[in-house]
């Protein structure tokens, strides 16, 4: 049951609503007049007054000729005019009509009343006419209900204000709503009041629901700012009553921004900052390039934003900027203050560094302290720069390194204003041949820095210093005071060691000496390329050794008596001499060392280490010295030389390099010979005492004939001792000393002196005798009498230590000359001999 009720209730409501709608919105011509009224087929109750089952909308009949037509219409309601009389009344010329006239005015001016009409007939052709629908005779009346609507009786009172800062208009109006019936505010609408307000403005309208109280409407009515007229009308569906038009003044909100400030040349993106105020809540930063006229689209802009500053990313160039603020209140509109987009304020951006200049090395300035090194300058041209910023006050930085990767950097200028740098400022120089790497960069006043522009260069090698020659011949100098020199000295190149000392010399200077027999040629070179700090000022001295000659030196003026030249100053860097003639002076040993001996015939065994240097310009002892050509040949032993024996080292002769061969051609020598001494005066005396006859003497006056004379203690032989003449004598003293105080040249005599010690007076210059002793003193070291000693016989010191003490003023001659006389031995054979016994058992 409940279900059933639930079903019919909405149906009922639907039908009711439909009816209401049909009443409020009459539709005409939607039904066929005369058709049976069914529920709902005739909505207007006036059209179906008989209710269901009656006919709808009694037709309004019209005749057109003979054609009848019926039309339903509001004014023809209930027209029951009969069908057209097509007979007779429709004849031409007849006007036989009867029709209801129009309803007269409604009986009320407002609301439901009655209106009446009269059936008007025109009976021209005597036609019987009557009004129909309803049927009525002519002049009959027909009344009906009528209703007179009344427009709203009260005008709204309107006002219009701007809604805040928006472009909305807020229309306010007041309407005294006293009711909706006749005479009341809303008036009366026969069809039913449809009270509403309508806001009318140019270009549109808006219908608003009528509500009680103050009415207001805020709406975006206008697309632009300005003054508009707004009128509020009250409508009830039957009429309207409008307010007086009021103006709506929509004033654009004022948006302010702070003034844009110019940005002078800068390298960084400018922080465009502005404040905005009043109504603005957003700001637009606008940036244009190369023009101050701002026009969208801009070169760049921030977009509407509420933040400030705005930092656009700008490349190098000239820009203009400004701001434009707005309010974001709905509807969104731009502020119009300033009305036009303001002119931009300049921004100058320079992010472009200067072009790094191309540096170049040059200006290699010799380092005075090291001529092979150079102070190096590194220069570059003015850097090209674009952009608003000029070159910085100190726009350049130069670096020099020895490494291509500039690690480490040897020289760094830092930022400087000049366009050159020099290692000289740091006092650093570099050797020729050194490869240097330079780089330079530039910057502008905004610190826009260029990259490095690198360059490399190799310092030219310095020109080699010339090679100079120091050359000369050899001079043999004998006297220490330079009083005697003999030129054209011939040397044995293998024995001469000449070297040049070059001071200072850090390895930069080299010398090479070519030595020939007659001259030398030393070249001096300075490798100022390999040794850049080579000092061109050299002091060159000679260093030479030659077989006992000392010193081997240069002398001033190439003169024998010239002072020794310790060194020759040479400047290689400025006009050095191509060659320098310097004779080399070979100082022959002086003093006791100058003495040298020579032999004629015989063999020699050296028992003492000695320097018996034979001069290069040796002179003969006397005419008996040598008779071969050339006479001054430099033999130790001339004529028939025998064996020469010595031990090296130990008893070396040291004949020097001048000796031709040391001794004459018929010779034999051993350089590692240790001689054995067997005999001595004592042993011989022992032999003599046992095997030979002898006589003991105390002076030569005791000598009577040939024989052996024994000197027990000491004996002195004076010059010209005639006791020795024409005799073959052996003076023998095993323990004593025999002194020879004068020359001994006995006539027709053969003499041998065998003693423990023999002393020869310095004045003695000639002895014709065989001298054999354990020690022999042939003269004083201080003897400057220029007495040379000649021994014609033999000279034998049985023990080591013999010293040739004879010192001559000129060492060119031997101071001791021994002419070995074998015949003297044969003459003295019976005395100066022994016998050898050989015993053997045969059976």
């Amino acid at each position, binding site marked *: 049951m409940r279900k059933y009720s639930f079903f019919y209730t909405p149906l009922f409501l639907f039908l009711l609503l439909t009816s209401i709608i049909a009443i409020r919105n009459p539709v005409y011509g939607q039904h066929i007049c005369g058709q049976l009224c069914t529920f709902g087929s005739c909505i207007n109750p006036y059209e179906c007054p008989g209710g269901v089952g009656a006919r709808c909308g009694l037709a309004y009949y019209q005749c057109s000729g003979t054609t009848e037509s019926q039309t339903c219409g509001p004014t023809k309601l209930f027209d029951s005019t009969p069908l057209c009389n097509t007979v007779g009344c429709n004849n031409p010329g007849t006007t036989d009509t009867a029709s209801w006239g129009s309803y007269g005015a409604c009986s009320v001016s407002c609301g439901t009343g009655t209106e009446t009409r009269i059936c008007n007939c025109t009976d021209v052709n005597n036609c019987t006419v009557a009004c129909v629908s309803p049927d009525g005779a002519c002049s009959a009346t027909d009344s009906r209900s009528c209703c007179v609507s009344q427009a709203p009786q009260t005008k709204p009172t309107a006002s219009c204000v701007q809604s805040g800062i928006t472009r909305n208009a807020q229309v306010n109006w007041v309407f005294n709503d006293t009711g909706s019936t006749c005479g009341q505010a809303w008036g009366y609408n026969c069809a039913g009041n449809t009270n509403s307000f309508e806001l009318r403005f140019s270009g549109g309208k808006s219908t608003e629901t009528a509500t009680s109280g103050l009415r207001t409407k805020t709406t975006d009515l206008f697309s632009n700012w300005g003054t508009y007229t707004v009128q509020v009308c009250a409508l009830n569906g039957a009429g309207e009553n409008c307010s007086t038009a009021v103006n709506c003044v929509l004033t654009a909100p004022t948006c302010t921004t702070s003034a844009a400030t110019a940005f002078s040349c800068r390298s960084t993106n400018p922080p465009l900052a502005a404040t905005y105020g009043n109504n603005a809540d957003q700001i637009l930063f606008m940036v244009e390039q190369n023009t101050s006229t701002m026009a969208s689209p801009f070169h760049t802009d921030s977009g509407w934003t509420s933040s400030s500053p705005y930092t656009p990313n700008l490349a190098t160039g000239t820009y203009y900027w400004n701001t434009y603020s707005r309010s974001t209140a709905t509807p969104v509109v731009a502020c119009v203050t300033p009305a036009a987009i303001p002119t931009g304020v300049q921004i100058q951006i320079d992010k472009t560094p200067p072009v790094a200049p191309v540096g170049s090395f040059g200006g290699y300035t010799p380092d005075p302290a090291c001529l092979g090194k150079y102070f190096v300058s590194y220069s570059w041209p003015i850097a090209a720069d674009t952009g608003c910023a000029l070159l910085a006050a100190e726009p350049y930085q130069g670096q020099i390194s020895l490494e291509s990767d500039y690690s480490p950097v040897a020289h760094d200028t830092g930022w400087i204003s000049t366009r050159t740098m020099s290692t000289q400022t740091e006092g650093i120089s570099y050797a020729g041949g050194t490869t240097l790497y330079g780089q330079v960069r530039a910057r502008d006043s905004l610190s826009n820095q260029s990259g490095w522009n690198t360059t490399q260069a190799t310092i030219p090698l310095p020109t080699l210093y010339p090679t100079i020659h120091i050359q000369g011949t050899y001079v043999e100098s004998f006297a220490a005071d330079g009083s005697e020199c003999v030129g054209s000295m011939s040397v044995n190149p293998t024995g001469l060691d000449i070297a040049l000392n070059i001071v200072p010399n850090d390895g930069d200077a080299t010398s090479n000496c070519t030595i020939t027999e007659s001259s030398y040629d030393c070249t001096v070179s300075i490798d100022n390329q390999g040794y850049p700090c080579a000092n061109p000022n050299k002091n060159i001295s000679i260093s030479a050794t030659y077989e006992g000659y000392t010193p081997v030196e240069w002398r001033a003026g190439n003169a024998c008596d010239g002072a020794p030249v310790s060194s020759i100053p040479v400047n290689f860097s400025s006009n050095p001499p191509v060659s320098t003639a310097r004779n080399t002076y070979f100082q022959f040993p002086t003093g006791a060392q100058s003495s040298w001996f020579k032999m004629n015939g015989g063999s020699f065994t050296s028992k003492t280490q000695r320097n018996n240097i034979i001069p290069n310009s040796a002179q003969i002892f006397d005419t008996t010295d040598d008779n071969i050509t050339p006479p001054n040949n430099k033999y130790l032993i001339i004529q028939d030389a025998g064996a020469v024996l010595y031990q090296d080292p130990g008893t070396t002769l040291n004949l020097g390099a001048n000796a031709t061969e040391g001794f004459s051609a018929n010779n034999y020598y051993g350089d590692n010979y240790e001689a054995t001494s067997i005999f001595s005066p004592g042993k*011989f005396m022992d032999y003599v005492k046992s095997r030979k006859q002898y006589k003991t003497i105390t002076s030569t006056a005791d000598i009577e004939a040939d024989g052996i004379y024994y000197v027990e203690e000491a004996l002195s032989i004076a010059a010209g001792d005639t006791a020795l003449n024409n005799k073959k004598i052996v003076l023998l003293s095993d323990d004593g000393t025999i002194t020879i105080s004068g020359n001994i040249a006995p006539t027709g005599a053969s003499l041998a002196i065998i003693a423990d010690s023999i002393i020869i007076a310095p004045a003695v210059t000639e002895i014709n005798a065989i001298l054999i002793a354990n020690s022999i003193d042939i003269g004083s070291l201080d003897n400057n009498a220029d007495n040379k000693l000649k021994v014609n016989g033999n000279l034998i010191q049985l023990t080591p230590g013999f010293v040739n003490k004879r010192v001559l003023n000129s060492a060119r001659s031997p101071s001791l000359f021994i002419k*070995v006389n*074998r015949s003297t031995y044969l003459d003295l054979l019976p005395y100066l001999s022994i016998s050898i*016994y050989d015993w053997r058992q045969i059976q």
Partner: protein
Amino acid sequence: MNIQYDNNPEAQKGQVLLITVMLLAAAITVVMTVAFNSRTETQMTKLEEDSQKALSAAEAALEAAIQKKGRVGLEDLQAFVGSGITGEADIVEREENEFVTPLLQKDEQYTFYLSRYSSTSNSYSDPLDLSNLLNPLTIYHKSEGGGGCPALELILIDFSNNVTNKIIDSCSPPLNGAKLTTSTGEYALKGYSFAYQSTLNLSNMKVMIVRVLNAPTRVGFSASQLRSQGKFAVSEVKTASGTTKEIELFQSHPQIPSDFFVTSF
């Protein structure tokens, strides 16, 4: 391995007997040996005594001949009269084809006479003429007692007292005319063996002084005929038992010691 020990008393008795026999044999051997040696030594002592007596007699005769510078018979010597020892000594000079020096010490020299030398007059005569290439003077030498290569320095003095020096170096080849060519071989001379040989043609020479270098060396000379190099004292004696002794003493001609001959200091 097991070791068996024999504890049989009979076996131990056999061992004692064996040892006893062996000791007895050893004792007999020692006694016989001593007896034989004693008789032999007695005989040798007798011979030695005769030999010593003969040698003493020969030396005595030799000494007497040297002093006498002529022949001396044992009968002239009182000490040997009636001793049964007979013999004599005499002084002779020989000119032979060969001569060998005594062993010369290093640096000693020997005066070899190439002519006849008269010690009484200290004169020279009759020099050898060995100038013929087929008749040279041949010099031999050989070092004894260690040292280096023997070398000889030859100093020839002619009758004009001119001196010529020569060298014989057994180890070094000749460098110039002063060096004589040396041949190496086995050479025998008067009972001595030599290792090196050199030849030299010469004439009119008084003496040749040979100095020995490097090592003790014995030097030999040979030629078709050499000159006397000294005197020989020869003594020959004979004992009654028949023991004969012959001894010879050579006394050279005067020799100049090399220490007094070679210039040195």
